[in-house]
């Protein structure tokens, strides 16, 4: 086995050993802390194992409807107005182009 490979193998063994040692220290401390929990601290609650539905949501938890309703109507109006404006803008541009072309054609026709 080459020297580099040997060094790497030792480094791995040391790292694994340190990790194991650290884990056992942490576990020991947690066990000690649990054993030393003072009587005045309340025991942690157990995690929920079922959902209990409510019959109706309290007022403070309900989503207000008015902003959504207003937003919907406002969006419709704005979208339609923007669309009409965009057609008007494109139509104006095309009409201007037609006028320019027509005047150019009539100029060249009058020259001939």
């Amino acid at each position, binding site marked *: 086995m080459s020297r580099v490979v040997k060094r790497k193998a030792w480094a791995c063994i040391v790292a694994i050993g340190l990790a194991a040692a650290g884990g056992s220290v942490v576990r020991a401390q947690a066990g000690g802390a649990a054993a030393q929990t003072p009587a005045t601290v309340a025991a942690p609650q157990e995690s929920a194992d079922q959902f209990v539905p409510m019959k109706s949501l309290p007022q403070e938890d309900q*989503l207000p*409807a*008015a902003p*959504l*309703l207003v*937003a*919907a*109507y406002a*969006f*419709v*109006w704005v*979208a*339609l107005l923007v*669309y*009409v404006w965009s*057609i008007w803008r*494109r*139509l104006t541009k*095309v*009409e201007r*182009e*037609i006028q320019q*072309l*027509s005047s*150019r*054609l009539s100029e*060249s*026709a009058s020259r001939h």
Partner: protein
Amino acid sequence: MSKLYSILVLVAMVLFAVAPAIVARTPVETTMGVVQKIFYYHVPSAMVMFIAAFVCGVASAVYLFRGRPGADRLAAAAAELTVVFGLIVLVTGPLWARKSWGVWWQWDARLTSTLLMWMIFVACLMVRRFGGPGAEKLSAAMALFGMANVPFVYISVNIWRTLHPSTAVIPKLPGGMRGPFWFCVLSFMLLFGLLLALRMRLEERRADVERLYLVADHE
């Protein structure tokens, strides 16, 4: 623009201005509350989206198989309106859903199929814009597939289990809701007709520009 068109525009604006006042007086729905009133704009927009998609598909078929340029102009106008009204549906729906279902979006049959149909028509517009020569025919072919989606989107709520209300809701609307709903439908249909005519005028003027360029090139 003709006098009749101006009168119809005025009528549409009045209908639209009056609609919120009428909707405010409608009864509040028992389970959903005030947010259900989004229904009076959401459903008519969806109806117009379907009609626009259908018009686009039929016009595209006429253009593909008969080669009529007028049909292509109508298809272009209808595709744009499908995207606009589809966007309205896809925004007002989640605003309603946030309160009713507790979520902005669900990947259920109705919502997903509507989004896909909308994306097909967005793709049609992009192909027209960036596709180069022959893009009109490609866009027309895509619009046929977009139109084929319409019946699937409509019946999706009846076939698959979905959070979205079924099509049976509209025929069973109580009296206080029925009148305002059909008033809003009428407003949106009139608006669709006017916007379609206006958008077609733009396409016609663009065709005039191309004709003038051809004449100018020959000279």
